[in-house]
């Protein structure tokens, strides 16, 4: 199978999930499409580095995240919430959780710093294990678990219908 044939297989298998991942990272469909194209373009140039086809998904996700980080490195695109202001204990919420509005979810994700957003997206989105997330982000697994706990706590304060978070009206953005 040629390079192009292999790439077509990769596209067929992963383009939808890559696009969704890119969308949740970047927050816009235009950026998500650009990032997806860029990720596959970089994959084409480095295809010989992919020795284990079983790892293709993680490999592509890593390429896409690096492309995203490269884009936002020199520009602070979002005002992000310092999660020091948010507790990491589960907040009391309703037993019955109504459907979450995806736009509202995206706004909440956009408010998170990338270091918290990426593990949250990988966690919910693709059922990546803690170990996989740690590998993707080059972080110790304990750091990943801590960031996930705090990121989830923040999402609850933003998405859960009631009651209000203990001891606060809402997360202070500190800015």
């Amino acid at each position, binding site marked *: 199978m040629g*390079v*192009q044939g292999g*790439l*077509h297989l990769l*596209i*067929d298998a992963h*383009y*939808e999930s890559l*696009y*969704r991942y890119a*969308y*949740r990272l970047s927050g816009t*469909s235009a950026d*998500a*499409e650009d990032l*997806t*194209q860029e990720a*596959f*373009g970089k994959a*084409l*140039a480095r295809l010989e580095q992919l020795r284990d086809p079983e790892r293709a998904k993680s490999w592509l996700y890593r390429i896409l995240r690096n492309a995203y980080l490269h884009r936002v490195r020199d520009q602070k695109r979002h005002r992000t919430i310092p999660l020091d202001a948010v507790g*990491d*204990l*589960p907040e*009391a*919420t*309703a*037993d*019955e*959780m*109504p*459907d*979450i*509005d*995806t736009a509202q*979810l995206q706004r909440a994700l956009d408010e998170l710093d990338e270091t918290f957003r990426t593990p949250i*997206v990988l*966690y*919910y*989105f693709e*059922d990546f*294990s*803690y*170990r996989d997330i740690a590998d993707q982000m080059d972080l110790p697994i304990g750091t990943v*678990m801590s960031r*996930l*706990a705090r990121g*989830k706590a923040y*999402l*609850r304060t933003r*998405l*859960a219908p009631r009651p209000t978070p203990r001891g606060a009206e809402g997360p202070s953005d500190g800015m």
Partner: protein
Amino acid sequence: MECNDAQFYMRFRRHGPDETGAEVTDALDRHLAACPRCAADARTATTFDTSVAAAMRDVPVPAGLRTRLVADLSVRHAVVFRRRLYRGFALAASLLLSVGLVVGAFTAARPQPDTARIAWDADAIGDPQTSEDAVRTWLVAQRLPAQLPEPFDYGLYLTRGTEEVQGRDVPVVVFRDPHGPGFAKVYVFRSTSFDLKDMHEAQSSSCRAVPYPDRAAGVTFVVVYTGQELTPFLRGRGGRVALRG
């Protein structure tokens, strides 16, 4: 397990595969079965995780995205292919150029044989005085005594140069026999290259080797000649100089 521990571990309990380990999971399950408040919190957490996961995946993929990706990759692939092709051509061209330059430089450096000079040198062989001067100049250039140990007849001079003797280059002057195919060779052995003590005459079936030490100069001449005597090779056909001994 206490409630505080249960609350702690619940944060890390996944909606999908459990990564907290069987021991913790079992203890947590037992606690949740016995503690209504923690059980309610666990249900809430699970419900929240399920809702967020569903919303997280709810991203519509634009129509035609796959087609655009394939088209973009085809263009990129062509660019990459062309770039590699050009790089290959450039490499091959530079290799060819390098080889051409080396061959050209080597070819240009080869001198053309100078037949006029060769003829002039051959003329000089027939002239005894010119030959003797040339040999003397050559010996001095080699930092050797200017005179050979016997008054050789330079009308019989053939050539000069070096010969490998016992793995070392030794200067030598060659004379021809005026009466036949014989020769006389005068080797000059340096004390820096050979142990010159106790050298003596030697005789083979057709040649004789006679050493002529010159201790002041740090050399020993060895004259090797065919026939019974050296006389036919000498000026006036006879006589020896006083170097010997």
